[in-house]
C-alpha cells in the first residue's frame, strides 16, 4: 500500500495522479497512514506574525502540518486564517517568524520558488485561456514543453473527467466544472502542498456537499498535503484530518475534529464549534460547559454511570424535524443561566414550554473552564 504523500512506483516520469480505474482500489486512510508517515513536518509555521497598520492579523502562530495531512484552518471572518495561508503561499510577507517547507526556511522565497499550489475562492481561472491552457500554465512556467506537457495535461484532465471541456473557456463552464479545473490546474505540477482558500463557498448548497466529498476523495487520491481555509465548521469537521481553530489572529486549538468538538481547549472553541454551541454555566470557581445534545432524561443513562442533575426550565421549543431544540434557563440549585437542549427525534419524551425538566449529563461530558482566561481547567 502506498502511503499518502509518498510517490507511487515510477512517479518520477508519470504524474502522481491516479487514473480512475486504479483509484477505485481502496484508498489509504489518513488515520492509518499517520503512524508510519514521516513524523517530520511537511509545512511549518514558526511564530508567524503579520501586522497591518498596527492591527495584528496573525499573532505568533506556530503550526506544523504533517506529510499527506489535510489540515483545516477554521475561524470567523477576520481571524487571520486567510492571511496565514497567504503567508505560507508567499503572497504576503510575514512581519516576523518563518515558514518552513520540507524543513527548509522559505520565508524570503517568492511563491514560484516554493512549489506550492493554491485554489482560490473565485477559482482565479485565466479567463482568456482555454481549460487546456489554464491547466498547462503552471507546467509551461516550469519549462515543460511539447509532448510531455500535452501528456501531463491530458492525463490529469482525464483523471478528473475534464477531457470534454479542454477547448472551452472558463466562462463556458458551470461552477462545479470551474472548481475542478482550478483543482487540476493546482495539482498538475505535483506541488509540495495544496492550499485551498474557501474553494467551496461559491457553490450553491446542493452542490457544496457533493463537491466536499469529491474534494476529500481528490486529496486522498493525489496524496498531497493540503491546507484548507474555511469559516464553515461543517466543512472543517467533514474534511479535516486535523482542524486548527483561529480567533483574532491567535491559534486557539489544533486537533482532530473529534478532539476539537469533545475536548475544546477554551470557551472560544467550545462556543464556535457546534450548532447550537456549547452551553456555558457559571459555577463557583469555574465555567461549566455542556453540549446541548448531552442534556438528557434520566432513562438514557445506566444506573451506575456518574451523572449530574441539571434541571432546566423550558421557555420555548423549536421543532426541526430530525431534532427538537429547547431554549430555557437552568433551575435551582444552579444559577439561572440560559441553556439550549437538543434532542434527536428518537427521544420520545415530552418537551413542553413552561415545564421544569429534570435533565442529566454524564460527568465526563461536563467541561470545566477557567472563568478568567477561558482556558480548560482540570
Amino acid at each position, binding site marked *: 500500500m502506498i502511503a499518502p504523500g509518498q510517490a507511487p512506483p515510477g512517479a518520477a516520469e508519470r504524474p502522481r495522479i491516479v487514473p480512475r480505474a486504479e483509484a477505485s482500489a481502496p484508498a489509504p486512510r489518513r488515520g492509518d497512514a499517520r503512524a508510519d508517515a514521516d513524523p517530520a513536518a511537511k509545512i511549518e509555521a514558526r511564530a508567524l506574525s503579520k501586522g497591518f497598520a498596527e492591527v495584528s492579523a496573525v499573532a505568533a502562530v506556530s503550526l506544523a502540518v504533517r506529510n499527506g495531512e489535510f489540515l483545516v484552518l477554521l475561524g470567523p471572518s477576520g481571524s487571520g486564517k486567510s492571511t496565514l495561508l*497567504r503567508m505560507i*503561499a*508567499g*503572497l504576503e510577507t510575514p512581519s516576523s517568524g518563518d515558514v518552513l517547507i520540507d524543513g527548509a526556511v522559505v520565508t524570503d522565497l*517568492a*511563491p*514560484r520558488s516554493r512549489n*506550492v*499550489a*493554491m485554489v*482560490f*475562492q*473565485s477559482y*482565479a*481561472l*485565466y*479567463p*482568456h*485561456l482555454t481549460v487546456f491552457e489554464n491547466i498547462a*500554465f*503552471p507546467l*509551461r*512556467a*516550469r519549462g515543460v514543453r511539447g509532448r510531455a506537457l500535452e501528456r501531463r495535461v491530458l492525463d490529469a484532465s482525464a483523471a478528473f473527467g475534464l477531457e470534454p471541456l479542454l477547448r472551452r*473557456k472558463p*466562462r463556458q463552464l458551470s461552477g462545479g466544472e470551474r472548481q475542478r479545473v482550478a483543482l487540476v*490546474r493546482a495539482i498538475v*505540477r505535483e506541488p509540495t502542498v495544496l492550499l485551498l482558500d474557501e474553494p467551496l463557498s461559491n457553490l450553491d448548497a446542493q452542490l457544496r456537499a457533493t463537491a466536499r466529498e469529491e474534494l476529500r476523495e481528490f486529496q486522498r487520491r493525489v496524496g498531497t498535503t493540503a491546507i484548507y481555509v474555511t469559516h464553515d465548521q461543517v466543512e472543517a469537521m467533514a474534511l479535516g484530518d486535523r482542524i486548527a481553530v483561529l480567533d483574532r489572529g491567535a491559534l486557539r486549538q489544533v486537533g482532530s475534529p473529534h478532539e476539537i468538538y469533545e475536548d475544546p481547549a477554551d470557551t472560544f472553541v467550545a462556543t464556535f464549534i457546534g450548532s447550537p454551541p456549547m452551553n456555558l454555566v457559571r459555577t463557583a470557581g469555574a465555567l461549566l460547559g455542556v453540549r446541548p445534545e448531552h442534556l438528557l432524561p434520566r432513562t438514557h443513562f445506566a444506573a451506575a454511570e456518574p451523572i449530574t442533575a441539571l434541571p432546566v426550565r423550558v421557555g420555548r421549543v423549536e421543532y426541526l424535524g430530525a431534532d427538537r431544540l429547547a431554549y430555557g434557563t437552568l433551575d435551582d440549585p444552579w444559577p439561572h443561566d440560559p441553556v439550549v437542549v437538543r434532542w434527536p427525534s428518537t427521544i420520545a419524551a415530552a418537551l413542553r414550554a413552561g415545564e421544569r425538566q429534570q435533565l442529566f449529563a454524564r460527568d465526563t461530558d461536563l467541561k470545566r473552564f477557567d472563568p478568567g482566561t477561558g482556558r480548560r481547567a482540570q
Partner: protein
Amino acid sequence: MDAIALDRVRPRRAAPRWRDDPQALARALLAPAILYIGLLVGFPFLLALYYSVSDATVGARVFHFVGLENFRSAIENPTFWQALRNSIVFTVVSQALVVVLGKAAAMALYRPFRGRALVRFLILLPWVAPISLGAIGWLWIFDPVYSILDWVARALHLIGPDAWPIWLGQPHLAMASVILVNVWRLAPLATVIILAGMSAIPQDIHDAAAIDGAGFWRHLIRINLPLLMPVMLVALLFGVVFTFTDMIVIFVLTRGGPYDTTQVLASLAFFTGVQGGDLAGGAAIALFLFPVLAAVAIGALTLARRAEVV
C-alpha cells in the same frame, strides 16, 4: 350574471404623470444627446459634404455644383500626398509610443507608494491643460536660441558646443518634436484608461499567476496584456482619433513647416479652407479623414468586442 354586472362598472383609470411614463422619460432624456449630435456633428458633416462638391469660397458661399472636381484637384496636389503621409507617420509613431508609455506608467502607478496621489495628479496635468497653452510652452522649450533642450544636451556632452539644432526648423527634427509634444499630451489619457483596466482585473488572477510560477515577463505577456487588450484598444482608438484629427499642436509649433514636412491632413484642410479661403477645397481634404477614422473606429470596436473575456 356577476360577470355581466362587473362589466358595467368602469373603473376610472388613473393617468400616470409624464415623469413616471418610461416612454416619455426616455424621449426626454435622449433629446439633449440627439440635439447635440445633430447640431454639432451631423449638421457640420452634411455642410462639409455640401461644400466639397461646390466651388464655395469664404467670400462667396453660394452653391455651384462642380462634382468631384475638388477631390480631383486634392489628389493631384503633391502637398496633399505629403500631408497624408505625414498624418500616418504622426499618428502611428505617436500612438505606438503613447500605448507603450501609458502601459508602463500605469504599471508604475498601480501599486500604492508614498506620494502616488501626487504623481498621478502630475501625470494627468498635460491632459487637463489646454492644448494650445501646453503647445506654446513647448514652443519656448524648442526655441532655437534659448532651448532648454540644447542646454541640457550640451551639459551632458550629447551635442558639441557649436551645435545649434533648430528643433522646429529642420524637417526630421520638426516631425520628432511635434510627435514628442503629442505623446506628452496623450500619454496621460492612455495611462488613466489602462490603469482603470488594470484595476478591473481581480487580484486573485495575479496571485494565481504568481503561485503558478509566472515571472515578470510571462505574467505581462500571457496574463496582463491579453486581459488588458480590450481596454488598450479603446485607449488606442481614442488616441488615433485625437491625433489624426488634431492640428493644434502642429498649428502652434510649426504651421506645417518646414516645407510642409509636418503638414497633416487636418492642418492642410484648415490652411486651404479657412486661411486660404477655398472652403470647397478645404472641405474635400477634410473629408479624406472620414473613411480612415470610420475604418479605425469599426476595427477597434470589433476587436474590443471579440477580446472581451472577463
